[in-house]
């Protein structure tokens, strides 16, 4: 086995010291009845060269978005990724470390997390961030649970414009703790939740209301009415945000959010068929900060007064508090958080704004071009950021397969979420005018 360095001589020496003849004897505690006496039914070992060939074959069966142009989004985005990221994140000192339990020899990871936390605070306008969660959906579920714990209430108000998969995750987490959910319908004309929908909700029982911004359709919700009504009755405002949109949009902190979560895939992480990405999680106020789930890094000094970083507020966590912990999370998505931190650092203030600005411009350009086409219409009127929905009575799944033959993936048909005829387009700064114009021409031919 190529990763096992033990030689026969060394093995013999170890066995001699242990006073046993065979390694087999070390397993005598396992009752004979459950000892596996046959080989595992798995394919035989591959050499490195064979493994590389096998993966090339597997990967070759997938159409990748380096070879086809995509307008898919809905939680996973094709943004430009600066080349240096993989070189930094691939460094073995980061890649092969674990949670920094011994701070004196893991200052690198600890400081990078502290910087990540600061960057998330800058984006969200909140006071504190944790070190990351699994993804945006589970981060939102944990935010809703935290709101319940903080308010001692057991009702969560969810907009119907929340990403359907996120809703599914939140529902499962909440049901597991017997928390009830009330849905806010969206206005069919605007595609966002109307203030009228907020009437008739039992707000005094509500731990929080969730707003996804932009919402699943890419549209901008009016946050103020949500905030005003939930706060008036002592509940919390939880926002699920797209981090790229925060380059242009008001920060959730400015809008009065109490807990802010989101998915950080778009911050330099590969799409990778949906994972790994990271969930970010931020909040404000010492009471809520001490209820945050997950790892948190804080600044301190060493015995000589030198600045350094440690895991802190650990009395919230499972390894100390066990069943009384604020969450069961242990491993998080540290390397993806590092990726996000490197991304935001190299993009910088101006570069990051450009990403949002160009995505916005290009999304509106494509929408305008598509709307000039016979048979396509915009079902919703609210302003959007870099995703938009169009409507046409055509088989979008079939159109996508035919587009694929021409080197394109179109938008996401929303029929899979029970919304026939609708399709969700996402446009990032990575798309070019030439690609979009070509796409529009092709689609025109297919729809006509």
């Amino acid at each position, binding site marked *: 086995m190529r*990763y*096992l360095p033990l030689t026969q001589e060394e093995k013999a020496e*170890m066995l001699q010291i242990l006073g046993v003849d065979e390694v087999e004897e*070390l*397993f005598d505690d*396992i009752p004979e*009845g*459950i*000892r*596996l006496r046959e080989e595992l039914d*798995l394919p*035989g070992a591959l050499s490195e060269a064979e*493994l590389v060939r096998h*993966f090339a074959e*597997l990967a070759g069966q*997938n159409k990748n978005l380096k*070879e086809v142009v995509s307008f898919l989004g809905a939680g*996973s985005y094709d943004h430009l990724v600066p080349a240096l990221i993989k070189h*930094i994140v691939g460094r073995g*000192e980061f*890649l092969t470390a*674990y949670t920094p339990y*011994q701070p*004196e*020899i893991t200052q690198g990871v600890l*400081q*990078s997390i*502290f910087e990540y936390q*600061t960057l998330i605070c*800058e984006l969200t306008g909140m*006071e504190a*961030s944790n070190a990351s969660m*699994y993804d*945006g959906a*589970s981060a939102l579920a944990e935010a809703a649970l935290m709101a319940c714990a903080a308010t001692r209430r057991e009702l969560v108000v969810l907009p119907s414009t929340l990403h359907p998969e996120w809703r599914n995750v939140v529902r499962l987490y909440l049901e*597991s*703790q*017997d928390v009830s959910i009330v849905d806010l319908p969206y206005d069919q004309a605007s595609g966002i939740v109307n203030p009228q929908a907020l009437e008739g909700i039992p707000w005094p029982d509500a731990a929080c209301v969730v707003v996804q911004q932009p919402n699943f359709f890419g549209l901008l919700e009016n946050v103020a009415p949500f905030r005003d009504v939930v706060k008036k009755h002592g509940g919390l405002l939880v926002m699920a945000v797209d981090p790229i949109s925060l380059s242009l*949009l*008001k920060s959730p902190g400015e809008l009065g959010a109490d807990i802010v979560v989101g998915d950080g895939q778009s911050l330099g992480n590969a*799409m990778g*068929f*949906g*994972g790994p990405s990271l969930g970010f999680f931020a909040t404000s106020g010492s009471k809520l900060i001490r209820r945050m789930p997950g790892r948190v890094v804080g*600044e*301190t000094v060493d015995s000589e007064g030198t600045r350094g970083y440690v895991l*802190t*507020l650990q*009395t919230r966590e*499972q390894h100390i508090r066990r069943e009384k912990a604020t969450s*069961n999370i*242990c491993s998080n998505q540290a390397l*993806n958080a590092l990726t996000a931190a490197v991304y*935001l*650092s190299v993009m910088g*203030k101006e570069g*990051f704004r450009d990403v949002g600005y160009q995505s916005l*411009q290009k999304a509106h350009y494509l929408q305008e071009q598509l709307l000039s086409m016979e048979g396509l219409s915009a079902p919703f009127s609210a*302003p959007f950021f870099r995703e938009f929905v169009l409507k046409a009575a055509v088989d979008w799944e079939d159109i996508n397969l035919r587009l694929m033959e021409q080197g394109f993936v179109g938008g996401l048909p929303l029929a899979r979420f029970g919304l026939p005829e609708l399709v969700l387009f996402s446009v990032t700064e990575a798309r070019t*005018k030439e690609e979009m114009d070509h796409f529009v021409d092709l689609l025109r031919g297919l729809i006509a």
Partner: protein
Amino acid sequence: MTMNKTVPLIFERSAPGRRGYRLPDLDVPAVPVGDLIPQDFLREEPPALPEVSELEVVRHYTQLSRRNHGVDVGFYPLGSCTMKYNPRVHEDVTSLPGLAAIHPYQPEETVQGALELMYNLGQYLAVISGLSATTLQPAAGAHGELTGLMVIKAYHAKRNENHRREMIIPDSAHGTNPASCAMVGYKVVEVPSDERGGVDVAALKALVGPNTAGLMLTNPNTLGLFDENICEIADIVHDAGGLLYYDGANANAIMGIARPGDMGFDVVHFNLHKTFSTPHGGGGPGAGPIVVSQELAPFLPGPVVEKQGDRYRFVTPEHSIGRVRSFYGNFLVYARAYAYIRSHGPEGLKQVSETAVLHANYMMQRLKDVYHLPYDRTCMHEFVLSGVWQKEHGVRTLDIAKRLSDYGFHAPTVYFPMVVEEAIMIEPTETEPKSTLDQFIDVMKRIAEEAQEDPELLTTAPHRTPVKRLDEARAARHPVLRWEKP
């Protein structure tokens, strides 16, 4: 080469107007932002991100990386974490665009290779665990626990036994076990360990009853010991109507040697970042797939991959609990575990476990004269010492851990499991050469001598690290969780 005591924060390197990256020029007509989004939605200033050049970013993170211990840097015997070598070829094969640059919502016909990988990995994990059906959705071990408990709960509910809300957990269990129970509304019932370190069977018999949802067990357990009563334990729980959950954190000891399914477990999670060598990444991402019995398969989160003829497709199990995260889990992480299994084959995986167990026993044998060994019996892939002999000299396990840093080693897991006073949990793994094990043994012996001769050397350790011992109490008392512009 010298190393500065501190590295400036990336924000402290910032200079207004400096840039590290430039987008291509906008190639569509520019429209004033206020015409596209009402002014009321817009922020006045972009977020105050650092303004640094690409070189500064590279140098910054390179300097940070040099202040970090990883498996690539040196021995990392962190018990229960299985810090084995992470083959570099896995980084290469999982960054192929055909895996890294595919979108989760592409038509299934265009991602058959990805689905094939998922399907086969699920099958392999079923073979290794001796169970039937897999979900790859959970993102980490604790997430797998949560998912498994949700499945167990749904199973009981389906049988109109929703009153089963008690989960039995040994006092030696990982903290995630009780924390996961709390997240599904289960009451934790703790079962004590017996004098051999296993579950106290008599106590277990007294604890099970009509409200028992199940038992969560790590086997080998957190003491590194295989619970030889496992079959009896399984019968007791099953006879009471409960199910058995296998915490797979210690699966590195049993691959090809024994299978949780054969032991009587109904649900297993694997920590792919431990047993199957996906890099730990400074704390993640991991992957915590669960494998369940045929009876529990209909409750798994969806979608799962099904094979029909030579095509693969996503399907949702009949009574699926729903989703525990978006999309299909940490795909690029579990793709590395797939590569690991393919590289090793059945014989290789068995050798991995045999070698991990041999290494641990060898180290335990050579250290037990110098450090107290509370459970003196054959261990599996890890073992737990106690620092009580050193405590007599005023030296705590924490001090021993810090002193190890001075010798270039990462410390073992300390103060866990809680059933051992001043615990030192050592997991060498199979990928370390014997010379490294011997060096570590020598250093541990030397530290034991230092504890007697010069306790202060230990209580003030570490001495050779970029920063000295850090004040953790101060960090918790006065939390500074972000950088503020001076």
